[in-house]
């Protein structure tokens, strides 16, 4: 059967493959993530106010106002509109995600390809370095990197880059390990051997033959990478390394400010930015887990075969 071009786009292909519960989980993930992307792009059109706005036509918004018609989700202790800041927060999060993924994917995959293909002492040293960094708590590394980048106080870009860089440092080993393992396995296969026979150079073999076959498992890591990127940003924000509210809206910063509201029973300042984090993480993770299951033959169940086993299971139960 000939596959259409659409069928080769990663997520679309898997959507077609999947059935039942799995399809539901995958499509839910795709929809949630898609909504966030749209909200981030069109934030100025959707949000009633700007992220740094303190006054409306009727004067100052006021601090810690309960949800009302003017402020559907209330206002924060600093006097910002919670709804608007939550919406604009999607922008900051997505920028951090995109930068983190591009950097770590690019560096990690390249290192894995060359290290695995050429081997030698450099390869061995890289493996030890990657193992060392892999086991280290992400947030601690993020704190240190944030201090290095901005001395701890943040404008929009230094805040986003602190999170993105620290995630990059932590994720390079992940891509590196996976790609390297695949390359080591693939480079001795006969199709690589025959490419070499007909005179293909190392670079050509790496990029034309090895690369394609060694990136099958990357979608799962990319989704984990994405979740970690914006959650690290939020974690840094929560620890006071946040982006100033006048530079951008960031959910973790808002949650830190909401910490003291909780004791007086003010729930709206914490609930909405928090839910925004959870829902985005849920969307991306649903995508990642479903893609992973579809790629794992042990966990995959499809069409007719699944029906039969299901029936068997019922029989055994009965």
């Amino acid at each position, binding site marked *: 059967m000939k596959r259409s071009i659409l069928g080769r786009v990663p997520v679309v292909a898997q959507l077609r493959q999947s059935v039942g519960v799995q399809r539901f989980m995958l499509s839910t993930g795709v929809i949630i993530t898609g909504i966030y992307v749209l909200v981030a792009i069109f934030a100025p059109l959707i949000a009633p106010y700007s992220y740094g706005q303190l006054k409306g036509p009727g004067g100052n918004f006021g601090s810690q106002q309960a949800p009302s018609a003017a402020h559907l989700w209330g206002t924060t202790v600093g006097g910002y509109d919670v709804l608007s800041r939550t919406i604009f927060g999607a922008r900051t999060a997505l920028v951090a995600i995109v930068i983190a993924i591009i950097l770590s994917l690019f560096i990690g995959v390249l290192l894995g390809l060359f290290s695995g293909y050429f081997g030698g002492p450099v390869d061995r040293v890289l493996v030890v370095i990657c193992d060392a960094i892999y086991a280290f708590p992400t947030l601690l590394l993020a704190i240190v990197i944030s201090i290095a980048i901005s001395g701890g106080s943040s404008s929009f870009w230094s805040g986003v880059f602190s999170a993105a860089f620290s995630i990059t440092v932590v994720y390079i080993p992940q891509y590196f390990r996976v790609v390297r393992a695949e390359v080591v396995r693939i480079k001795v296969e006969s199709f690589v051997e025959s490419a070499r026979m007909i005179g293909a150079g190392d670079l050509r073999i790496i990029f034309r033959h090895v690369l394609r076959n060694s990136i099958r498992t990357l979608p799962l890591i990319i989704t984990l990478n994405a979740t*970690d990127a914006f959650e690290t940003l939020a974690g840094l924000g929560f620890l006071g390394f946040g982006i100033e509210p006048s530079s951008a809206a960031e959910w973790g910063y808002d949650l830190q400010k909401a910490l003291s509201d909780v004791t007086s029973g003010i729930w709206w300042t914490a609930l909405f930015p928090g839910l925004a984090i959870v829902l985005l993480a849920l969307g991306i993770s649903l995508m990642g887990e479903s893609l992973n299951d579809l790629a794992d033959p042990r966990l995959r169940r499809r069409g007719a075969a699944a029906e039969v086993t299901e029936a068997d299971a019922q029989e055994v139960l009965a």
Partner: protein
Amino acid sequence: MTTSPETVPSPLAPAPAQPSGAALRSGGGLLRYIVVRFLLIFPTIFILVTVVFFLMRSTGDPITAAQGGRLPPAELAKRIHEAGYDRPLILQYFSYLGQIAHGDFGTTFSDHQKVTTVLLTYGGATLELAFYALIVAFIVGIPLGMLAAYLRDRWGDAVLRVLSILFYATPVFFSGLLLQLTFSIGLGWLPVAGRADTTTELEMQTLQHPTGIYIIDAFRTGDPDAVPDVLKHAVLPGIALGLLTAGVFLRLVRTNVIGTFNTQYIDAARSRGVREYRLVTRHAYKPALIPIITVIGLQIAMLLGGAVLTETTFEWKGLGFELNQYLEARDFVAVQGIVALLAVIVAVVNFIVDIIAALIDPRVRY
């Protein structure tokens, strides 16, 4: 962040940190494995300490960071000179390595305490919190994971898997805030923050050689109210941090139980007429638990990262809370010291976990 779901193991992801190198691949006995794995601790610590040192110092010296602007320039320069921060960076680096080799992680700038003393004073609290979190993770994660495997590919399974994602993807400071809002503010059942009431803490201060682990100290006071008080304070932080790991366990147990389901001995048991429920609870779960041991090692890193956030949320005065205090004081000597010390702890714990995994599962050794 933090709640690093990167530690979520998956059958396709590479096996958790395993030592490599020709010596290991060629096989050899358990002793050989232990020796090689032990030697690998040192490059790990060296790499992490180096990374932390150069990152921390790339912005300048810690004295300017803490005091800059508040001291006259001459006084500032004098202090920097006295502390040796005007030497070439590479010299400072080697003397720092020398210090660490002697177990000296520096002295905090703001309150002149040895970093090792900070660890001894507050480490107990973090250890206690991590212990409660692991209990929660086991109680919640393993049975639910088995249930999900039992219900696999049905709607109950989907619900449990979404639950698992929610557990590990919810930042601990948000779940902490929700728990506080619900159980402390709303229902008034549990204290909002802290590790114990003031009366209990005063009682514990009269103890000789307090351990810093409140549950032990509470027993030693002999006050019948002390233990329930300490436990009451531990419930919410324990749950907030524990659910993170519970989500990981749930997912892992499910995947592995389903994996063992396809093996022949399960087929054999099934054909003998063993019920599906019994297959899950008796036959399939034991081999599924082995990977959990390795994952606990990775969870230690996650728990330490999560502890900073949990301790800040609940004002749980442990190492993470202290780290945050030093961050606010811009005491970067302390931050560098604590982070470097944690690197050592993570490396040693991972070593121990790898050895335990090797003892349980011979396949790891080769």
